């Protein structure tokens, strides 16, 4: 479903051009579980942002669900992000003044869904992540693990096909981190395509498919 062909992403830093992605070709099947590992600056986050349509390739072709998304307008890309892609970040990125429920509701609000349709979906999403009793708490009243679960609820409330997680356990202690991984893997077991970027070899090892990056290139691509 994700099909990257000869993707280049160049950044201008001063008067030097940095090749963050250098001729990357990668295909991910629907429902796959992929971990992307590599040292800092290897381009793994850039790859994730590009797959998530937060960034545009300098060259190359990106097809999502057999649709060429490289040529979409900003607004069309935004809509695709809203419908098909969920993001989970290391820093959670919850809106601090909104309750857990309101944070989860955000993507549906942006999509323009009427309130009566939003309510059921938000409740179901919170329920699935065992957060129903935390719905009216603000982020600062939640533990790190709970915050990341709220972020996952928010990423999945639109029922996207792809879930992109950038260091999802990076800000968590071991136990909460393991809980979050369990949640992500159970979502994958139910069919969502999961791509995780991580430094943590233990986490990386768990994925069915492991992509190792170095200097903007895919160094190895192993399927277990």
């Amino acid at each position, binding site marked *: 479903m994700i099909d990257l062909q000869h993707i280049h992403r160049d950044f201008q830093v001063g008067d030097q051009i940095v090749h963050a992605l250098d001729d990357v070709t990668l295909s991910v099947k629907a429902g796959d579980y992929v971990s992307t590992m590599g040292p800092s600056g290897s381009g793994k986050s850039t790859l994730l*942002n590009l797959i*998530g349509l*937060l*960034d545009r390739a300098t060259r190359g072709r990106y097809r999502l669900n057999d649709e060429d998304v490289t040529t979409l307008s*900003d*607004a069309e890309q*935004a*809509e*695709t*992000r*809203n*419908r098909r892609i969920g*993001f989970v*970040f290391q*820093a959670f*990125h919850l*809106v*601090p*003044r*909104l309750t857990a429920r*309101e944070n989860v509701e*955000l*993507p549906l*609000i*942006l*999509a*323009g869904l*009427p309130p009566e349709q939003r309510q059921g979906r938000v409740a179901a999403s919170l329920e699935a992540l065992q957060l129903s009793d935390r719905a009216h708490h603000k982020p600062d009243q939640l533990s790190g693990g709970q915050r990341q679960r709220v972020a996952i609820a*928010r990423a999945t409330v*639109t029922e996207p096909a792809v879930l992109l997680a950038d260091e999802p356990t990076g800000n968590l202690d071991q136990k909460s981190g393991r809980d979050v991984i369990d949640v992500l893997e159970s979502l994958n077991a139910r069919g969502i395509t999961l791509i995780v970027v991580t430094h943590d070899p233990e986490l990386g090892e768990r994925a069915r498919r492991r992509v190792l990056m170095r200097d903007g290139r895919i160094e190895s691509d192993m399927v277990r």
Partner: protein
Amino acid sequence: MRTRAEDIIRFAWRALRGFPSRTLLMLLAMAIGVAAVVVLTSLGEGARGYVRGEFASLGTNLVIVLPGRSETAGFNPGNMLAETPRDLTLADAQALTRSFSVRRIAPINVGSAMAAWQGRQREVPILGSSSELLAIRHWELAQGKFLPSLELDRATPVCVIGSRVRTEIFGPHRALGEWLRIGDRRFRVIGVMASEGRSIGIDVQDVVMIPVASAQQLFNTPSLFRILVEARSRSEILPVKQFILDTLQYRHQGERDVTVITQDAVLATFDRILGALTFAVAGIAAISLVVAGILIMNVMLVAVSQRTAEIGLLKALGAAPPQILALFMAEAAVLSALGAAAGLALGELGSFAIRQAFPDIPAYAPAWAALTALLVAIATGLLFSLLPARRAARLDAVLALSRR
């Protein structure tokens, strides 16, 4: 993909409530701007209403004749020779009653003299006039009668005194029937004016009124200071003016040496001046609205840089640039609307306070001013939030999200 308007406003409202001190500051700035417009225009309108009221108390359908010519009508050798205009005389005044359009006239002579009673004395303005003055000026008597209606050239030793003159000269004693010495003559007090009754230039409370012929004798002059003429109706003001000009020109050997002022013309002039003044102060007050707008822009720019991560998140969740723009502009709109509403309330309160402090001034803000202030406030808020909102909409999502 379109976000519902009520959701945008609710999100903006939550964002504003999330930063209470910043929001209150901007509300205050907006409110002060709007309140300034409301209070200043209500003052301007109040001044206008006050002047209009003063003119109304001067008399209705009033035409005022004064000696001398104030208008220029081109050069004419006669102007150089006849430097001093002819006096207005009682006979001139008498002649003006000969038109059906003229309801009544009152000649006026003014001066100042020493008034004394039983050793108390005081310098008072003296007003020589006729019985018709009371009706023309809509004055009222507190005690006794007004000047008797006699022929204009009959001097009778009677006077009507203002209420302050009464208290200051007669104190607790009865004034009616007493003989008041004015200059070297004695006048019997036949009436006391009610204390109400001011009008431009003359405070009725302070004057002593005597028949015009007596005043001419007292001041030893045949001339009049003014002739007040009341037209029968508003539509006859202009014919009356023409009649006066023609009559006096005829009587003054063909010389047009009087000035005739209609109250309407004077009132219209004042109205224009004060109207312009109201606009001017409204304009000055509007500057404070612009200042409020700039403050909003400043604070919104800070807000955008503080909420960079949030903007990145919204983009990741699928907000397109126009949606981000709408969210931030909605914040400014909600803010300006609330600030303007608070300012309107504050301004009305201020106008109310002015009316309490100065009951003579009808300080009501005109509807146009309140409405304009409201619209300008919201427009300013939107305009000045455009730049910060566009900056937010154009933020690079990846960079925005990487900011902690």
